C-alpha cells in the first residue's frame, strides 16, 4: 500500500513533468522583439535590442538546459496599426509566445490590446506611457522599464528640490508629449514650484529657435523638454546656440537616452539633467556586460532599453523554467510571483499591476573635461530607491490591484 502510493506519486510526478514539457507550445519558446528598426528611435532599441535578447538567451544557458528558444524581430515603424498587425500575425501564424521591447507609447498600447485578446505575454521595455500599468493594465503585460510617471517624478522632483522652481515646457504636440508635460507639471506644483507656460511644437520640428525664444522670454529657471528623439536633440543643440544655458536658464530633458547624449556630444549636452534606470558604468557587472554588448553592437554602448530587454528576457526564461509552461497569462503571473535578479538591475520585483520595480537614477551629463574614456558621460546626482521611483500601486487605477 505504502509502496504503491509512492509509486503512483512518482508516476504522477513523471506525468506532470511530461505534461509540463508538452505545455511549452510546439516545443519551442518563441520570442519576438518588436521595435523601431529604421527611424527616430532605432538607436535606442533597434537591432541592439535583438542582440541583447540573444545575449540573454545565451547567458541563461537555454541550449544546455534543453530549451529551444527562437528570436524573431520586426520593425513597427512607430505606427500602432503596423505594430498591432505584426503582433497579430506573430501570435496567429508564427506562434510567438512573448513580445519584448516595443518603444513608442501608441504602439505599445495597441500591442497590449492584441496580447490581451490572444492571451499571450508582453513585456514592455521601450515605451513610456504609465497607462500600461494604469487604466490599460492587463494580466498579460509587464512594464519593465521607465514610464512617464517615473521620468517626471525623478527629473521634475529632484530639480525643484534643488531650487529649479519655475518651469516652462517645450512639448511635442502629441498625446505622449502632453502626458509627459502633465505628469511633470503635477510633480513641480506638488513640490512647491510653478509652471509659467508651455508651448506645443509639432512632432519632428526641425527648428526650435522660435520656441526657445519664447521659453527665454518667460524667464523660467528651468526649460522642460517634454519630447523625445530627434526633437530633444535639436532643441538641446539649438538652446546651446542661442546661449540659453549661459543666460542662466537650465534645460531638463524629460526623456533622454545615452544614445542622444552620444549624438549631441558632451560639448553641447553638458550639464543636462536626466533620469534613467541604467547606465553602463555603474559597477563591475554592468561594465562587463556592456563591453560584451558593445563588442557585438558595432562598438555602440547599450542604452537602458537594451539593458532592459536583456534583463526582461532573462527573467522571462527563468519563469518559463520554473512554471514549465510558456502560456501567456500563466507566465506573466509566474514572473510577478518570482523576485527578479540580474546583473544589470540587481534585485527587484514585479507588482500586481505589472510594474517592474527598480531604482531610478538622476544623472548629470559630464563636462568634456571630466570625460576620461569613450561613453564616459554621466555622473550620478541622486538615486531614487525602487519603492519610490514609480507611481504607487493604488494611484494608477489598475483594476488588477485589489
Amino acid at each position, binding site marked *: 500500500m505504502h509502496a504503491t502510493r509512492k509509486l503512483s506519486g512518482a508516476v504522477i510526478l513523471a506525468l506532470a513533468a511530461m505534461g509540463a514539457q508538452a505545455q511549452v507550445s510546439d516545443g519551442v519558446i518563441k520570442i519576438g522583439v518588436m521595435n523601431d528598426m*529604421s*527611424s*527616430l*528611435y*532605432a*538607436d535606442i532599441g*533597434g537591432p541592439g535590442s535583438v542582440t541583447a535578447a540573444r545575449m540573454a538567451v545565451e547567458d541563461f544557458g537555454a541550449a544546455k538546459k534543453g530549451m529551444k528558444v527562437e528570436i524573431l524581430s520586426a520593425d513597427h515603424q512607430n505606427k500602432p496599426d503596423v505594430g498591432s498587425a505584426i503582433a497579430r500575425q506573430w501570435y496567429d501564424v508564427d506562434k510567438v509566445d512573448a513580445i519584448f521591447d516595443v518603444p513608442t507609447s501608441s504602439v505599445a498600447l495597441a500591442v497590449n490590446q492584441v496580447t490581451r485578446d490572444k492571451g499571450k505575454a508582453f513585456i514592455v521595455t521601450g515605451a513610456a506611457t504609465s497607462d500600461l500599468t494604469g487604466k490599460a493594465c492587463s494580466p498579460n503585460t509587464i512594464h519593465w522599464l521607465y514610464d512617464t510617471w517615473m521620468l517626471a517624478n525623478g527629473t521634475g522632483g529632484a530639480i525643484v528640490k534643488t531650487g529649479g522652481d519655475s518651469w516652462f515646457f517645450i512639448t511635442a*504636440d502629441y498625446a505622449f508629449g502632453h502626458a509627459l508635460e502633465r505628469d511633470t507639471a503635477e510633480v513641480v506644483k506638488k513640490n512647491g514650484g510653478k509652471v509659467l507656460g508651455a*508651448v*506645443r*511644437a*509639432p512632432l*519632428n*520640428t*526641425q*527648428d526650435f*529657435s*522660435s*520656441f526657445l*525664444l*519664447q521659453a*527665454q*522670454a518667460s524667464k523660467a529657471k528651468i526649460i522642460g523638454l517634454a519630447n523625445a*528623439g*530627434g526633437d530633444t*536633440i*535639436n532643441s538641446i*543643440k*539649438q538652446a546651446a*546656440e*542661442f*546661449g540659453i544655458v549661459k*543666460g542662466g536658464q537650465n534645460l531638463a530633458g524629460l526623456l533622454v537616452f545615452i*544614445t*542622444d547624449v*552620444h*549624438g*549631441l*556630444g558632451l*560639448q*553641447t549636452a553638458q550639464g543636462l539633467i536626466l533620469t534613467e534606470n541604467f547606465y553602463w558604468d555603474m559597477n563591475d557587472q554592468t561594465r562587463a556586460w556592456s563591453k560584451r554588448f558593445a563588442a557585438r553592437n558595432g562598438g*555602440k554602448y547599450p542604452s537602458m532599453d537594451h539593458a532592459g530587454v536583456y534583463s526582461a528576457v532573462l527573467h522571462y526564461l527563468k519563469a518559463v523554467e520554473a512554471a514549465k509552461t510558456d502560456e501567456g497569462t500563466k507566465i506573466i503571473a509566474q514572473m510577478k510571483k518570482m523576485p527578479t535578479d540580474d546583473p544589470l538591475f540587481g534585485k527587484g520585483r514585479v507588482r500586481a499591476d505589472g510594474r517592474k520595480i527598480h531604482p531610478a537614477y538622476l544623472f548629470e551629463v559630464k563636462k568634456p573635461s571630466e570625460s576620461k574614456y569613450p561613453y564616459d558621460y554621466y555622473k550620478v546626482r541622486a538615486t531614487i530607491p525602487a519603492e519610490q521611483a514609480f507611481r504607487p500601486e493604488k494611484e494608477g487605477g489598475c483594476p488588477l490591484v485589489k
Partner: protein
Amino acid sequence: MTEIFGIPTQALFGQLLIGLINGSFYALLSLGLAVIFGLLNIINFAHGAQYMLGAFCAYFLLNKWGLGYWWALVIAPIAVGITGVIIERTMLKPLYKLDHLYGLLLTFGLALVIQGLFRNEFGSSGLPYPITKELTGGHNLGFMFLPTYRAWVIVASLAICLATWFMIERTRLGAYLRAATENPQLVQAFGINVPRMITLTYGFGVGLAALAGVMAGPIYQVSPQMGADLIIVVFAVVVIGGMGSIMGSIVTGFGLGVIEGLTKVFYPEASNTVIFIIMAIVLLIKPAGLFGTQK
C-alpha cells in the same frame, strides 16, 4: 512695453528674424528644386536626400580629412553635384518625354535608397557638427540674442539666391538655358550642346541642395532623416511661388519662413500645416502660383 496681439513688439522682432533665417533654407532648397523643374521638367524628390548628403559630406571632410566648414562649403556641393550628374546621365535621361509622375517616382525611390543606406550605416540619432570657430558666439541685438552663425546663414543664402537668379535671368548662359526649355531643338541647332547643359543644370540644382545641407549641419543634427520631411514643404514653396519661377521660389521661401515663424508664436501647433493652407488658398486664387505664368 508696446504689445501687438499680446506679444511684446521686441519679442515679435526676434520671431520675425528667426522666421527669415528658416526661410533662407526654404529659399535655397526651393531654388534648386525650381531650377531643376524649370529646365528638366522633373520634380526632384531626391532633393531632401541630396541636402542630407551635403551635410554628411561636410561631416566626413571634417572627421576623416580634417577639412573644416569653409572647405566643406566648396567641396560638398561639387561632390554631391557630381553624383547628381551621374544620376541624370544614367537614370533621368530617358524620362524627360514622359509624365512628371515618373521622374517624381524615380527620384522618390532614390531618396528611399540613399536615406536607408545612411541610416543603416550611421544610425538615426545623428552626428554632431560644430559651428566653425569664426562664426561662434553671437550678438545681443537688444530684442534678441542673434547667434553669429544664423546671421551668416541669412546673408550667405540671400547672396547665393540672388547670384543664381542673376545668372539665369540676366546672363547669356542663362538665356541659353531658358531658351532650351522652350525649344531644345532650335537651341541645339545653334550649336549648343543641350543635353550637356541639362546635365550640368541638374548637377547645379543638386549642388545647391548640398550647399544648404552644409549650412544646416551646424544648426540641426547631421542625420539621415534630416531631409525626408523637408522635401514636401519645400515642394509646396515651389508650387506657391510658381513652378519653375526662380524669383518666385526665393521670395516665397523667405516669406513663408516669416509666416511660419509668426504661426509658431500665435498658434504653434499649426506651424507645420500653415504652409499647406497658404498653398491651397494661392492655388485657388492664382492657379499658376504667385510668380508663375500659366502655360
